[in-house]
């Protein structure tokens, strides 16, 4: 038991870091679902492209010698901003060419279209990186090496602190935007009733594009944070993260922005605590490799009792 309580602070730090990444990716799923009632399964690949864009920026800064000259947080910020712009533009483009033409068709059609986009992006990145670097795995340059000693046994890497700060800034600004800005409110209006929103002189197509811009931009930011935290990326890195972030979005209540944040953070914590405690709790029968089983079992149990998710709205029958 003592062994377990001693682990808690460290697990909390790891769980929150992972949870923040899930949360930011989950936002992309939930925002698009909220507005189009459609799961953008290509979002995991937008995350991956964002990870590559951010990492390539860092690699460029490293090879050009800037990385030693400018402060590491600034380098990270530049990489994130470029990754956000790149993924955001990609998201808008994907919506135009792959989703908008099939918007009035049954939702399954857009779903298939999204799967196609996923494969395309995976192979496109693999091809480009293969031709360019002769390898499609990228190692992320090390930005932060120091740790802060909180207690004798508990260390908090500076990297993690920056990841958390950036994640929190992103989530707070998104909340402010959606609740206070005129365009954010228009986004919510379109999500609640598209036709009526258009009667308010709101250009629904522009708002949908804006939603993809922001959702995909967040995916790009999360990709860069992920790359900095885990130091290795490849074209298939989006799949598992995407699956988990999507689950987190459903867990929190699909369509709900605070729900996606809460769901992501909880899933990260569950997973990390599962990995830390399973072995001890089961006397070594189940090891850390069962962390996903543990996390998902809890999710399923919660969804059985609350199918609309933690902060989800009860679905009204549309007439």
């Amino acid at each position, binding site marked *: 038991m003592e062994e377990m309580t001693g682990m808690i602070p460290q697990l909390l730090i790891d769980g929150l870091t992972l949870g923040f990444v899930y949360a930011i990716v989950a936002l992309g799923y939930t925002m698009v679902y909220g507005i189009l009632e459609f799961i953008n399964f290509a979002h995991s690949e937008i995350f991956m492209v964002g990870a590559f864009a951010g990492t390539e920026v860092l690699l460029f800064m490293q090879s050009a010698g800037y990385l030693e000259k400018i402060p590491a947080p600034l380098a990270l910020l530049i990489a994130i901003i470029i990754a956000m712009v790149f993924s955001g533009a990609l998201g808008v483009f994907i919506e135009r060419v792959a989703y908008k033409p099939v918007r009035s068709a049954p939702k399954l059609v857009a779903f298939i279209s999204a799967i196609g986009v996923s494969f395309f992006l995976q192979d496109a990145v693999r091809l480009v990186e293969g031709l360019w670097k002769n390898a499609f795995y990228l190692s992320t340059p090390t930005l932060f090496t120091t740790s802060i000693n909180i207690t004798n046994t508990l260390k908090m890497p500076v990297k993690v602190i920056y990841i958390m700060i950036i994640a929190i800034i992103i989530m707070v600004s998104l909340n402010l935007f959606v609740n206070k800005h*005129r365009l954010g409110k228009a986004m*919510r*209006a379109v999500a609640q009733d598209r036709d009526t*929103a*258009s*009667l308010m002189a*709101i250009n629904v197509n522009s708002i949908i594009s804006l939603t993809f811009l922001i959702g995909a931009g967040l995916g790009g930011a999360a990709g860069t944070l992920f790359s900095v935290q885990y130091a290795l990326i490849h074209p298939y890195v989006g799949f598992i993260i995407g699956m988990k972030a999507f689950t987190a979005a459903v867990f929190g209540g699909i369509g709900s922005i605070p729900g996606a944040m809460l769901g992501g953070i909880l899933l990260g914590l569950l997973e990390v605590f599962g990995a830390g405690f399973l072995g001890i709790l089961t006397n070594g029968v189940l090891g850390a490799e069962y962390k996903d089983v543990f996390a998902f079992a809890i999710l399923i149990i919660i969804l059985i009792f609350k199918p609309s998710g933690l902060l989800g*709205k009860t679905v009204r029958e549309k007439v």
Partner: protein
Amino acid sequence: MNKTILEINNVDTYYGQIHALKNISFEVKEGEIVSLIGSNGAGKTTTLKTISSLLKPAKGEVILKEKVISRIPSHLVAEGGIAHVPEGRKIFPRMTVEENLEMGGFRFKDINKTKKNMDYAFELFPRLQERRKQKGGTLSGGEQQMLAMGRALMSEPSLLLLDEPSMGLAPLLVELIFQSIQKLNSEGITILLVEQNAHKALKIAHRGYVLQTGSIVLTGTGEELLQNNMVKEAYLG
């Protein structure tokens, strides 16, 4: 004679497979209240949806102040000065009363203008002010109707389309809604009113049209239609 603000010329509209409007023509003049009456399924809502471009006519055209608007997207129609209060109010349920009103004034980026128009809506319907922080979905039917009308006014429309504003309301509230329609009209807003409550709708109308299975079968002043035998039999019971 007043200028024509809205003109519907030989419009045919399909609602899915249903031929909902058959060669409809009518006009609304500046400063008028025009009532469109008819039974369920006669095409009243379809007519309003065609005007605000939620439905595209298969044939014919809708002209607002000498500009053809029947083939432009509905947000541009709204920007052109038409505010449409849809059937069933269509309040944004998870937005507050204030936010709903703000959305109505989306075409204005100027916060002061939005504030001024919101004060006007609150003056017209003081109940909305009491409920300003409440979510739209939690309002009663009457309050939702007030909100829907207040929201439409936020865009400073030159033409207001009202779809069944009295539907499902208690008599006292029906009275209040019809009074506010007349008040808005006296302040210079042109109104096209769709109603099942034919008696009240014709009573406040300058002119009216009777729709039957997608065609206009009768027209006249409100008074003339109220006295008309066919109208009496079919709609005034």
